[in-house]
């Protein structure tokens, strides 16, 4: 029976015994229908790896659902809430597997600007645009070095390079939520510093966007 109301799901899962076992079995079947389809683009469906992952995730999800029943506020269908837990668990595991061998990227910008950047001419840009862009790049690099902590610079570089927040956070010894806050603080600092120097991000961006037009 997977047409329970939210209240029925909660009651059965709290009941223990047969009602709880049946509810868990039904929820397991629902997640097994939804999750493989949803992550099909990220892992080959029906492959042994996919089946093992889905089985592991479903078990983990059922445990988390039972542990977190009190946090369900009834603002969505219970099964959507359970799927949300399954999706996060699945993507966390997929990211971990994909990125586990990859070290956090180096900070590409240094205090002096990047020498290779200045030396390589960009044939698409006019000489004036090249000078503007180099000056702006150097100025932004300096602001980044002055305003951000090393952790913030590492986090920003990693995420700009496509590193998942979850994985970057783990390497930096924090959780994803804390990393987002750290980066939000970094973005605010940079934005305010630019404003203090009479620049808006849009103005700076326009210097880079002019190139090649």
């Amino acid at each position: 029976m997977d047409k329970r109301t939210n209240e029925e799901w909660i009651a059965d899962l709290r009941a223990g015994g047969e009602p709880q076992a049946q509810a868990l079995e039904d929820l397991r079947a629902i997640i097994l229908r939804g999750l493989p389809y949803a992550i099909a683009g990220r892992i080959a469906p029906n492959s042994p790896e996919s089946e093992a992952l889905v089985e592991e995730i479903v078990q983990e999800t059922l445990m988390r659902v039972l542990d977190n029943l009190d946090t369900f506020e009834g603002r969505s269908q219970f099964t959507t809430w359970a799927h949300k837990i399954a999706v996060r668990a699945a993507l966390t595991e997929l990211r971990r597997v994909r990125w586990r061998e990859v070290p956090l990227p180096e900070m590409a910008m240094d205090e002096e600007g990047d020498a290779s950047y200045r030396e390589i001419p960009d044939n698409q840009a006019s000489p004036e645009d090249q000078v503007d862009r180099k000056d702006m790049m150097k100025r932004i690099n300096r602001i980044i070095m002055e305003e951000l902590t090393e952790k913030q610079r590492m986090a920003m570089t990693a995420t700009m390079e496509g590193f998942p927040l979850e994985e970057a956070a783990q390497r930096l010894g924090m959780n994803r939520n804390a990393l987002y806050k750290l980066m939000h603080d970094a973005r605010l600092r940079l934005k305010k510093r630019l404003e203090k120097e009479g620049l808006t991000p849009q103005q700076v961006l326009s210097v880079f966007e002019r190139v090649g037009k």
Partner: protein
Amino acid sequence: MKIKQIFQWLLGSNKKKSSSPQNGMQADKSEMMQKVLTMLSNTQDVEMTCDEVFAVLDQFAELAARGEDVSRLMPLVQHHLDMCPDCQEEYKVLQRIVLNAV
């Protein structure tokens, strides 16, 4: 530089190819700077965190599946999803499930 090369190889399928190998590094740096500036431009004083968004993501996904204007109803959630690639990815996967169930 080796690490950078590994990274570029890993991300190769997602990144725009530069017009020539000679200015590849320059294009990457310029792209990176543009990404940073776009993020700064979109930064708000108050933003929801990943945990706060996760708490309402199921509700948000169902509202969106019903065709509601979620950007108006839950603007801070929408903004976080625009800024956070991890949460955005989780939302898109959840959305597939919800839409499939509707």
